[in-house]
């Protein structure tokens, strides 16, 4: 930037923008509503428990958005409505497809395609990765105590439960603060869900707890304890139990591959990684998906390979959309350049009198 040739401009008084533009009275109202919502949410969490079913979470997000969008323009509300519609379609398709994986896919009601259930394949891959050991069995044998809930049970249980809330909270906050970032987040998220649903149909997989359970005929590993929320309930989140059991009963038991718990746990940290500068914070943040996968294996919810494939899907979704956005940006820049008349030289930008 040129410093010698730059014209200088120093007006005697420069008015602040927010002093010159009439005050937006609904801005503080928005903030108050959002803080009230946060307080209400925490109260609910403490006394009523954590909501996990899609409808309740969507409802909670909806209330937050109403608080965050008070006083915004009609167009912004219209865009929000379309976004909400897209959000609902995404979750409904996910639930519908995920459920369909159980019974196969119906082709126009004429016949049904059901893909073979994977019982031993994932277990064999895990055994190969861990030199002949079953990580689920080893972890439960060493650390699970039926009578005592230890600190690591609380960590594992809480980490497991964040899956039902964390990505949705991030979505809602992004919605409120930057629609551009929300769109970036959702494109990646929807892609991940779409591919995962396809895999649930093509590759129905028996999870470790089912593979070892005496209630099923597979019994390829010793019986494992399945009580993912145990550590979380121990922290006093008792009222959550009913909702979680209900959510479990609605879910698809053989949708183990890929692990969306592992995918989501990597998803949010990966999204925010570019804004995190200190390397040690980056490393700390990336520890979360590792804790999640360890918890999933310890709690017998997933095989290790489910989690690794979940991470790979997250990486793939980020890679795809990153490339797509780069290309879109370059294309738009090229269009602009093509429409501009040629110039001899590009001068430096001269910034006058910084605020």
């Amino acid at each position: 930037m040129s410093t010698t040739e730059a014209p200088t401009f120093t007006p005697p008084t420069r008015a602040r923008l927010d002093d010159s533009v009439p005050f937006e009275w609904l801005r503080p109202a928005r903030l108050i509503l959002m803080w009230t919502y946060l307080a209400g949410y925490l109260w609910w969490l403490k006394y009523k428990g954590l909501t996990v079913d899609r409808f309740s979470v969507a409802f909670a997000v909806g209330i937050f958005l109403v608080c965050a969008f008070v006083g915004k323009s009609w167009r912004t509300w219209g865009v929000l409505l379309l976004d909400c519609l897209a959000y609902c379609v995404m979750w409904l398709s996910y639930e519908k497809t995920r459920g369909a994986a159980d019974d196969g896919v119906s082709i126009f009601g004429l016949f049904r395609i059901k893909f073979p259930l994977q019982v031993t394949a994932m277990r064999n891959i895990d055994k190969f990765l861990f030199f002949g050991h079953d990580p689920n069995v080893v972890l439960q044998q060493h650390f699970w105590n039926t009578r005592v809930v230890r600190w690591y049970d609380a960590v594992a249980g809480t980490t497991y439960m964040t899956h039902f809330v964390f990505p949705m909270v991030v979505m809602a906050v992004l919605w409120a603060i930057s629609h551009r970032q929300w769109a970036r987040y959702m494109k990646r998220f929807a892609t991940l869900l779409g591919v995962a649903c396809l895999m649930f149909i093509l590759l129905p997989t028996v999870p470790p707890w089912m593979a070892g359970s005496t209630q099923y005929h597979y019994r390829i590993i010793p019986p494992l304890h399945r009580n993912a929320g145990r550590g979380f309930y121990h922290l006093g989140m008792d009222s959550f139990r009913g909702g979680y059991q209900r959510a479990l009963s609605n879910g698809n038991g053989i949708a183990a591959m890929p692990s969306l718990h592992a995918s989501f746990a990597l998803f949010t940290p990966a999204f925010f990684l570019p804004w995190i500068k200190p390397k040690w914070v980056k490393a700390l943040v990336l520890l979360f998906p590792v804790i999640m996968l360890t918890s999933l294996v310890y709690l017998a919810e997933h095989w290790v390979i489910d989690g690794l494939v979940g991470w790979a899907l997250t990486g793939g979704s980020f890679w795809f959309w990153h490339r797509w956005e780069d290309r879109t940006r370059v294309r738009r820049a090229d269009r602009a350049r093509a429409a501009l008349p040629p110039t001899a030289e590009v001068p430096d930008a001269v910034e006058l009198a910084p605020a």
Partner: protein
Amino acid sequence: MSLDPPKILLDRSFLAAVTDDTNAAHEQCVAQYRSLVDEFEREEVLLVAVSTHLRDLERGTDLEFAHRAAYFLHRNHRGVFAPVEPLYVGFQHRRAAKGVDIADPADALTLVMCERHHVTRIATVSDAFDGYRIERVVPAAE
């Protein structure tokens, strides 16, 4: 902390100077716009403009309601201002603009949009914003 790159608002006078080759500041503005487009391509800045000002330049001022509505709902990223995102003007912005003490209503609207969308830099050839604390990016003098 903002998650988005800093926004630079292309003011009405700047947009006009880029498109009008008879404008005295045309060449400087084109050169300046090129460098801004390069920054946009590197994702260092976001280029924005007030939707009505952009629409007037891209589609003309005497648009029918249906065309105005179509533009309001969706704008294609084509032509010279393909990298530019419109900041859509609502009733509340027009209402607020009436309360701004500046001669030209269009400039008042620009100021309102800058304030509402946290824009701190503006590309302009007009001196209407000199009295405000907004960082001004102007074409270098020849």
